[in-house]
């Protein structure tokens, strides 16, 4: 019997969903609301030097990569399953479009993060 590849996508979906549940709300608040509206102790919270140093450290780099890539894999898998509910079924093209999106996001963020160096 041919082995199913669905556990891989399910695992990425689960990991991304967990990460989004744990950190998503606080992350969106910090980057999208608090910093733009200056609800922060200082205006330097997301300045270039600080974030650049964060992204150069392996922990920061790993966190950013995990968040960006796993959020994407979680979301496309969920969207793919929901499209079925509205009558757009899991044909090869639809699968390629969804998972291709996540793959592109993964590769672009990996290349950018690696180019920042350690």
């Amino acid at each position: 019997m041919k082995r199913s590849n669905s556990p891989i996508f399910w695992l990425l979906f689960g990991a991304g969903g967990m990460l989004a549940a744990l950190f998503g709300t606080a992350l969106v608040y910090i980057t999208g609301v608090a910093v733009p509206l200056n609800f922060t102790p200082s205006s330097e919270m997301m300045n270039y030097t600080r974030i650049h140093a964060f992204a150069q450290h392996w922990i920061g780099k790993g966190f950013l990569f995990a968040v960006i890539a796993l959020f994407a894999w979680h979301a496309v898998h969920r969207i793919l399953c929901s499209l079925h509910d509205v009558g757009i079924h899991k044909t090869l093209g639809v699968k390629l479009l969804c998972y291709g999106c996540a793959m592109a996001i993964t590769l672009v963020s990996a290349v950018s993060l690696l180019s920042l160096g350690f």
Partner: protein
Amino acid sequence: MSSNTSARRPYVRSMRGWWRRDRFFMVYMARELTAFAVLLYSVVLMVGVVRLSQGEAAWNGWLAALRSPWSVLVHLVFLLSMAVHAKSWFEIMPKTMPAMFIGGKRVAALTITRAGWAVTVLASIALLALACWGQS
């Protein structure tokens, strides 16, 4: 006989708009829609990382874009979606994970859900503390 059956056009109820028929389905769809917020936010962060790798001017351009009123409005929608996602993620978790036993007794679904929410609160506080670290 067969021509008779093929000429019949039995009524088949349409599935169009099925999720608007029932409150339960609407809650389900709202929950599934949070995936779009997660995907778009992932793209926002990806662009941020790309801009960061292009130098200080590019990074400051990304920060300026985040300050536009439209961006803040969109992020408020993301914020709500992420909260809905976190709430429902841990509500579903007892149904998706293998049964857990402590001292021979099965852990109640509500206990698992509440533990998940508690960890989310702690993780959020930790992240906010980290973001504020060395500031002020």
